[in-house]
């Protein structure tokens, strides 16, 4: 199973964190943007270093979000949020209770969604074979986000996450998930 990327949205609909693994970077696009946490500067880094990107390269150790899309990260995050928001409402209308939407699948990827009571939304894309990642995402929230962000007195809420410890622990956790391919 391959895990492609992870988005975290706060309750004000802003993307506060994005990272990706296993993403085949396109030649000519910046690799290894040092700001995996902040979508705006990741896009700026991608634009600036676009001409010198190494073809077929991959972010070092898969640690930082190597963004190789054809639209900016900010735009894509807005689209992802829009999709997730619309599907949540659709499921709420059809099933009559909220918190119903769990995941969706296309022929090449599967999107898993987890929302906390405080309005924090976790969106994770994996390959279509992965059945149920809710538990894993719940653990990411309770054991990594709560530990390193919520309990951190120096972190301001609703701001992009730039905490190294959070990123490192997240990478270790995801890499240790059963069957994660590099």
């Amino acid at each position, binding site marked *: 199973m391959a895990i*492609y*990327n992870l988005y975290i949205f706060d309750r004000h609909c802003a993307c506060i964190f994005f990272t*990706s693994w296993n*993403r085949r970077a396109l030649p000519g696009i910046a690799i290894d943007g040092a700001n995996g946490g902040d979508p705006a500067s990741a896009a700026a880094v991608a634009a600036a270093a676009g001409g010198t990107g190494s073809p077929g390269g991959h972010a070092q150790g898969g640690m930082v979000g190597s963004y190789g899309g054809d639209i900016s990260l900010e735009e*894509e995050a807005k*689209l*992802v949020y*829009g*999709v997730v928001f*619309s*599907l949540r*409402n*659709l*499921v709420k*209308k*059809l*099933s*009559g*209770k909220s*918190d*119903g*939407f*769990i*995941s*969706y*699948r*296309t*022929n*090449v*990827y599967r*999107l898993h969604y987890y929302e906390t009571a405080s309005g924090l939304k976790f969106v994770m*894309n994996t390959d279509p074979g992965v059945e149920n990642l809710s538990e894993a995402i719940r653990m990411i929230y309770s054991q990594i986000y709560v530990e390193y962000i919520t309990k951190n007195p120096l972190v301001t809420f609703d701001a992009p996450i730039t905490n190294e410890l959070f990123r490192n622990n997240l990478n270790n956790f995801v890499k240790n998930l059963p069957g994660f391919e590099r």
Partner: protein
Amino acid sequence: MTIYSVFIINKAGGLIYNKEFAEGLAKLSTNEYLVLAGTFHGVHAITSRISPVPNSTGIEMLQADTFKLHCFQTATGTKFLLAADPNHQNVDAALRRVYEVYADYVMKNPFYTPEMPIRAELFDMGLQRLIKQLNSV
């Protein structure tokens, strides 16, 4: 193993058919179904866009707590949605058979205008028969 409802959306995103076969989804007004169909049509288009891997189709299966929604898009852009209970296996085969019923009683009907709401009694009957057979398995 029950199929709750069937929806058919034309290539512009308009709902041209919806029918409930079993209890399971909330009861909504026709207007609300129209809005949901339009929303789904838009979301389907965007999901192929935001894919982390190139060349993705749109949503094929949406999983929720109480139901699973499967979508089959034909080469002409018509989408068939089937809402079934979460444990239902083999909904893809069911979708193909719904498509067959559609091809026989709607497309081959000389009085049917494509992309318009479906008002064919034989289609209703054929679909009812098919879903009844699938639900009783």
